[in-house]
């Protein structure tokens, strides 16, 4: 360590000094060199050396600064991470606080919607038939979203499809594209996310005009065939600012309204009157995405099932089969795949046809085949956990593990250290069990876990939440 520093410093100064002293005396070169090497280890010369390094770094930094300057304005939209406070000063947004604020807003919105819609029991459209209409007209090639609108839409759709099937295992999705004024069904209604995503990624080209009416007509044709208990939904991702229709679109909208198809639109450009009219008439929602992350957020809002509107889908009993897993070593052909596979199939309890995976419909007799976990995956929509309240009073320290500190009941994180300076509150508490939780756990509990650890840690007779 010392040797390298001393050596390099010494040699640099040696060169400089020798260049200076050489004309004066040629034979004292050795002495000078020795002296210089000796000096190289003391403080003054080290500082000198550091200054050189700093200069080099400055140069490098300036070179990168140009790039960063461009990058900052072109891609990163750095002004969006600034916020104006009450006195007009700019202040950076703390990403965590921002994230949490977003989540709270989402949660409150959802819980208030639930309170409005349901008096006693929550009813949700759990069996959904959703057509995703993707606008691949000329406007989808615009580069205002990077790299292009359609690439961003495809990426967000992929995330959405995965999330959708995670939350609605018994639902079906189909993809429709609009291109050259014609709408085309890309995939049939189905429950397999991989095949849907694959076929979308293969068809990403845009051209021509877009036609809202053609798309609606096509979807209406398909959706009128589905069983009456299903919720018919259309989600349109609309890039263009116009629609090029063959007939009167109002008639089509009226038809959709009669067929109880809920149409929602997410616009990528600007608000269009006809889209708003369509959404208002059919009970859907209309929103405009500001940027890529906002688009994703808007899209994912459509993943959880919406509160059921009484007339939209008629309650019905659906006949379903619960197939049992076949013996592993058996070799069998199955109706869903072309090739022979070894074992691991399920057998339809009605016609004994073999199927590969659940949930599906039996290819032979048409019976819906599910397993009980698929049904259970949807139950959390029906038994939501209460919104936690922001609390300011100190948490009770009746914890067994460590009595002195306030901590999150769920993850044992300190509630005191964790709060950053500009947060007004650091923890939330469940209105039922009165336990305190940290903000991260709050998000996890409401968005993924769907269990309140505090309520679950009490005997169930008291809270009476899950009486199944």
């Amino acid at each position, binding site marked *: 360590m010392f040797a390298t520093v001393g050596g390099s410093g010494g040699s640099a100064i040696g060169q400089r000094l020798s260049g200076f002293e050489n004309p004066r005396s040629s034979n004292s070169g050795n002495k000078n060199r020795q002296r210089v090497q000796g000096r190289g280890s003391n403080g003054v010369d080290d500082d000198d050396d550091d200054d050189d390094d700093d200069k080099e770094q400055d140069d490098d930094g300036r070179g990168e600064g140009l790039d960063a300057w461009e990058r900052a304005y072109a891609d990163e939209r750095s002004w969006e991470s600034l916020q104006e406070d009450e006195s007009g000063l700019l202040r950076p947004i703390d990403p965590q606080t921002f994230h949490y604020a977003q989540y709270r807003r989402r949660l409150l919105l959802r819980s208030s919607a639930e309170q409005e819609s349901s008096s006693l029991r929550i009813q949700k459209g759990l069996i959904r038939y959703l057509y995703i209409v993707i606008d691949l007209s000329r406007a989808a090639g615009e580069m205002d979203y990077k790299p292009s609108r359609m690439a961003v839409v495809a990426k967000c759709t992929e995330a959405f499809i995965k999330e959708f099937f995670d939350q609605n295992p018994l639902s079906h999705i189909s993809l429709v594209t609009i291109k050259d004024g014609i709408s085309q069904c890309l995939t049939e209604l189905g429950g397999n996310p991989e095949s849907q995503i694959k076929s979308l990624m293969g068809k990403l080209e845009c051209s021509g005009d877009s036609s809202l009416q053609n798309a609606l007509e096509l979807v209406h044709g398909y959706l009128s065939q589905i069983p009456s208990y299903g919720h018919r939904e259309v989600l349109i991702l609309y890039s263009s600012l116009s629609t090029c229709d063959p007939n009167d679109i109002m008639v089509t909208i009226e038809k959709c309204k009669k067929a109880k198809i809920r149409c929602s639109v997410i616009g990528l450009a600007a608000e269009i009157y006809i889209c708003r009219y369509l959404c208002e008439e059919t009970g859907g929602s209309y929103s405009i995405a500001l940027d890529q992350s906002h688009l994703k957020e808007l899209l994912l809002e459509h993943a959880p099932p919406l509160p059921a509107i009484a007339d939209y889908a008629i309650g019905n009993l659906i006949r379903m089969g619960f197939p049992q897993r076949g013996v592993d070593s058996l070799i069998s052909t199955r109706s869903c795949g072309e090739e022979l596979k070894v074992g691991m199939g399920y057998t339809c309890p009605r016609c004994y046809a073999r199927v590969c995976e659940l949930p599906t419909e039996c290819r032979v007799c048409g019976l819906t085949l599910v397993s009980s976990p698929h049904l259970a995956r949807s139950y959390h929509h*029906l038994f939501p956990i209460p919104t936690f309240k922001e609390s300011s009073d100190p948490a009770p320290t009746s914890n067994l593990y460590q009595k002195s500190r306030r901590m999150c009941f769920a993850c044992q994180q300190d509630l005191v250290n964790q709060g950053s300076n500009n947060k007004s509150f650091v923890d939330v508490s469940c209105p039922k069990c009165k336990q305190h939780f940290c903000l991260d756990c709050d998000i996890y509990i409401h968005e993924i876990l769907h269990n309140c650890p505090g309520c679950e840690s009490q005997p*169930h007779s008291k809270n009476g939440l899950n009486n199944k």
Partner: protein
Amino acid sequence: MDNESTLSTIYSEDVSLMVVILDINPLFWTSVNSNTNSLTFTKFMDQFLPLLNSVLLLNQLNEIVLIAHGINSCGYIYNSSMENRRGGKRGPAFFAEVSEKLKEFMEADCLHRKGAKSTSTIVPSLLSGSLSLALCYIQRVFRSRPIYPRPRILCLQGSPDGPEQYVAVMNAIFSAQRSSVLIDSCVLGLNSAFLQQASHITGGVYIKPQQLDGLFQCLSMVFATDVQSRSFLQLPKPAGVDFRASCFCHKTTISMGYICSVCLSIFCKRHKKCSTCGSDFNRPNSNSKSSPVQKSKRKLDDR
């Protein structure tokens, strides 16, 4: 947010974080006591504590969190990462500390019970609560470090399943699956349908040891191995998991049944009204004439 966090998962593969969920249901352990040749709680602890110690010894970075649940409460008992910070104890001191904390917890759990009337049947313990705690803790580990140990959960369950916990336990299983946390289960009492499903869905191991005297061997052979090493081992093959549903009206297991389209309740025969959500099923018959396709479909279903 969650998607991103699961995608950017960086495990240090050979380091494990083992969250052990221990059922200390006093009713179960006292009922075991009365039988002659079975495992008492003291004997069980003699076999169980060496497992914790051996997991900690397998790799210096291994972490263990012990969560206990009784019939009235769930709580953290021991956390090796916190103990290490305070100068970790190993060997006898470690055993003594864990035992002491468990004893405190058990006493507190029994105290709660005083108010309730004593029952002859075993009250189910709060499995759902401690599963939720374990998952929250694992999420905290995910959040707090860039590289984290591979998490897994080991459930040591004695008491039977509580049907009222079904939704909560299933929720916990699905979130474990989502963040790829294995749930291993070792059942000391009757077979547990909850844990069978949990292990099957998350890819863990489910066993019900035949010989409880040699429990330590069983625990250390199966559950001490980290997730990565499991692919090289011949672990017990899962017995068939029954995914058939039981109907809400008679609680019988059925292979074909009727599902309410509104709330997904399961019934074994046709009803006029859903007993869970109150939906009326009579209306569609009059409506179905409107569309011929629907009618044919329903006919098919009714067959």
